[in-house]
């Protein structure tokens, strides 16, 4: 009898991919996917349970299937996915509470993996250059995804105290990029003209979706308990990322930023929450040495490689893409090379 793994949030891209990945492992005999909406992707052999994790029915499923590993990936990052901030909060916070309550009652559960985010550290001008896992955020998130993540982690810590026999792994991911994944930030970089906050050039880190899946897989099968920051090596400046996406940027003064964000959100172009705005002004970088030393994971893609892969594979192309700029450079060099002065020199 192999392991029985339950994955929440399988109908979204990463959850679906992760479910596919788990089936390839011979140690795992059953994979149960849970979500409120049916998955768009083919889940292969996995069983799909259409259930709301806000509903106590989830406990029955865990008990019936004797689930031993729960991977919680159903924390939504944007209200657009849920149909409103109230629903999003409900799914994120109440859903996690229900799921953890069910896990606490189920003696079969031995392992819990939670997909969290580095958003729990917030973004502020008083932040240290790099956050380690045990540093407290300077400015506590007041709303949105960041606040939900903080609350989810709080409940997870409570669960870990009450069920010390369960190995709990919390993975705090930096922003995901990659060929397929869609997040508020990837939508932001896909805008034809990218708005930035005037006078700020924040540092960012990215995780490639493949690295993200691999580390989730590793955390699910291994038994390292604890909290880990997950990010690709190195950092990128926002200006640099926009340039690599070939996009022109338009700096907006900070007081106008929430207003512009509201307009863009209303238009459905991109989702800008107040935390997202703070992130775009102050950025955030985390220390990943615990990921390397304890989890033993080396990301294949550095922050920059991950971002370049995202740009190349999502076909982002703008007036400032590398090939256009290089073409202009070559033209100018040709003109200079053909200048009368240069010709005289070559004749001499």
């Amino acid at each position, binding site marked *: 009898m192999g392991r029985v793994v339950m994955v929440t949030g399988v109908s979204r891209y990463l959850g679906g991919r992760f479910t596919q990945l788990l089936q390839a492992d011979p140690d795992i005999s059953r994979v149960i996917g849970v979500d409120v909406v049916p998955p768009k992707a083919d889940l292969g052999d996995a069983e799909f*349970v259409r259930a*709301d994790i806000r509903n106590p029915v989830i406990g029955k499923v865990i008990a019936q299937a004797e689930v031993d590993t729960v991977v919680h990936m159903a924390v939504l990052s944007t209200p657009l996915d849920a149909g409103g901030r109230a629903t999003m909060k409900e799914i994120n916070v109440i859903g996690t509470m229900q799921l953890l309550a069910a896990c606490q009652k189920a003696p079969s559960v031995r392992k819990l993996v939670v997909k969290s985010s580095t958003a729990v550290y917030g973004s502020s001008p*008083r932040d240290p250059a790099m956050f380690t896992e045990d540093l407290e955020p300077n400015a506590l998130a007041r709303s949105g995804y960041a606040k939900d993540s903080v609350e989810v982690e709080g409940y997870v810590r409570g669960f870990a105290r009450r069920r010390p026999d369960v190995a709990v792994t919390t993975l705090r991911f930096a922003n995901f990029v990659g060929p397929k994944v869609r997040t508020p930030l990837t939508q932001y970089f896909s805008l034809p003209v990218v708005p930035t906050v005037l006078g700020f050039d924040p540092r960012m880190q990215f995780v490639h979706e493949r690295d993200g*899946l691999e580390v989730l897989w590793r955390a699910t099968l291994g038994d390292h308990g604890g909290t880990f920051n997950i990010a690709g090596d190195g950092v990128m400046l926002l200006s640099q990322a926009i340039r690599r996406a070939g996009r022109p940027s338009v700096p907006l003064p900070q007081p106008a930023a929430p207003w512009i964000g509201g307009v863009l959100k209303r238009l459905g172009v991109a989702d800008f929450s107040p935390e997202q705005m703070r992130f775009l002004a102050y950025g955030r970088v985390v220390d990943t040495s615990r990921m390397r030393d304890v989890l033993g994971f080396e990301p*294949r893609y550095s922050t920059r490689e991950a971002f370049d892969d995202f740009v190349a594979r999502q076909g982002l192309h703008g007036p400032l893409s590398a090939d256009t700029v290089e073409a202009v450079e070559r033209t*100018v060099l040709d*003109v200079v090379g053909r200048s009368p002065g*240069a010709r005289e020199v070559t004749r001499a």
Partner: protein
Amino acid sequence: MPDARVIPIGGGDRPSRRAADAVAAGASRAGGERARRRRSPLIDDSAGSVAPPTVQSTGDEPTGDAVEAASSASAASSASSAAAPTGATAKRSPSRRRPRSGRGAAASEPAGRQPDSTTPASGEPTTRPVGAEATPAAAAAAELPEWERKIAALLAFARRRLTGDVQVDEFGFDPELTDKVLLALVRPLYERYFRVEARGLENVPAEGGALLVANHSGTIPLDSIMTQIALLDHHPGHRHLRMLGADLVFSTPIVSELARKTGTTLACNADAERLLNRGELVGVWPEGFKGIGKPFAERYKLQRFGRGGFVSAALRAGVPIVPCSIVGAEEIYPIIGNMKTLARLLGLPYVPVTPTFPWLGPLGAIPLPSKWIIEFGEPIQTDGYGLGAADDPMLVFNLTDQVRETIQHTLYRLLMARRSIFF
């Protein structure tokens, strides 16, 4: 929802698993060895096999080579060409103080020596990158092969900036931008205007971590920029000074961006220790706003040195503390008053009144041309105190006092020896 519906998707029974889907098949194709799959569980879909280095190299390297080739070709042609341009090259080379390989031709000349000709050239790529590409057409008449090489380098620089092909460290420090553009803009101030004299540079270690502690003055923190130039241009190790700044710096637009790019980070123990442990030279001005915004009447009187956090950071990292005394910065904008109400309204620590500001409007921003001396004192070793020394408040206070006294006495000595404020 009263009950959960279990909907098996794909092949419900085990034997049909193989036919389940191409993706899962791709994964099992990996050889079937569990150990191997364990190391690389990711599914190799056809598009996913693009290795990250390939993605990068296709974009950048060929053109980089092309530019190199173009520049070396023009260099070769300049070497074989008429005597006049070669003479010009020869005349210029001795004036290069820092023949470092990292510098491009565009900005390799010290801006301080020839401020008129070089500063605009090296300032152009970032301020108007697109304009920089338009200049060669106009400059084609200049007919200097040296020019071509410069243009190639300048274009390469502009391209790297435009395509974001630059490397910054975790703190956001951009050495190329700092050295070639931002510091190039203020080098004339260092060389010509304040005529900074850097003494005791041999006291700053050429490599490895060290904490530089200095007095702060001058209303606008020009003293930190001048110290940065002194160590980068005149220290034999050409060291980048990584500075620690107040949080106001990082909440102010533009200032925050420039501060991060020139290697400043937040003054907190976590950042200081991280930099020191990486073997960086870290600069701290522990007086903070109390020092920089003090009235002219209190010039050269050191204020309280914070809470000694810098000493505990140095103790934890086991690096020497280099006391640094800066004379001349106090006189650049003498503060004769402070508009406290306006400062409170703007959320600033002070709004100065100087003999020229705000009376002369923007002209009030011109500093007085005082003569500066930056003296680096003998390093104070911190590695002999053993473990737990950083948690001994008495030791930390004593060391803080020792550093403060050293700087204060050096300031008095330098002031005694100074002939005049301006010469």
